[in-house]
């Protein structure tokens, strides 16, 4: 008697791909929201210069870019996240020259640790 699966196993491929994308999208959204909302505002130059891209890091910096409402940064992130496909890598990059001082602090200032906190949250939630 021939034994067969009641359903074709290939059907699970699409399902597991979908589940992977749910996690991928949620983790990317968390990374984006963390860096955007943990950023100090001040001139908003630093927070406007978070770059969100897929597979290739975007290391550009625009001196004149501003985003007082944080909406543009979030919209940029959502645009990149919407284009994610299975197996892609989501990059969040900020090359603002004084970004290092915000991240690690100085002798006059405690660290904001924007990216370190985002990384720690991702590690806690997604392992």
């Amino acid at each position, binding site marked *: 008697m021939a034994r067969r699966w009641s359903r074709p196993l290939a059907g699970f491929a699409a399902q597991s791909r979908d589940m992977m994308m749910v996690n991928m999208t949620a983790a990317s959204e968390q990374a984006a929201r963390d860096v955007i909302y943990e950023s100090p505002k001040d001139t908003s130059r630093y927070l406007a210069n978070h770059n969100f891209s897929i597979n290739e890091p975007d290391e550009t910096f625009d001196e004149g870019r501003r985003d007082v409402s944080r909406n543009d940064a979030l919209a940029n992130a959502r645009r990149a996240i919407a284009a994610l496909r299975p197996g892609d890598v989501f990059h969040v990059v900020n090359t603002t020259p004084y970004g290092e001082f915000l991240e690690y602090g100085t002798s006059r200032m405690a660290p904001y*640790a924007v990216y370190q906190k985002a990384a*720690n*949250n991702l590690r806690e939630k997604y392992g």
Partner: protein
Amino acid sequence: MANPTFESIRLVIERRLAIWDGVPVEYDGAPQSPALKAAIEAKQSWVRCTIQHGDSFAPYKGASPGVRRTGLTQFQVFTPERQGSRPAALLADSLAEHFQFYRDAGLELLTASVQRVGPENGWYMYLVSLPWRAG
């Protein structure tokens, strides 16, 4: 065990730091102690402690949800400029030794990592970070 409070987290970390046998420390939001002021004045090593809060979770729910809070303990280690990286490395080792895997009142500190920041405004700086979990 009762759920961790933000104050209990602060207490565990800062009390542990208070018995560290190292250099003068600047606590977050507190005025600088005379010892710290003297060290900075004399260009001697000092450390600033900052507790960074991350996400909180409720890994199990029900009648009394269990809360887990997470974050980072960060130490900015400042040593005199132009004396190499050894003084900063030794202080980072001392802090790691004192804090790594320390547990108290439901809080656990994890492994220490160092980020070299280097020369900064007359100092040489290392940043020591230890993730923590409470609850």
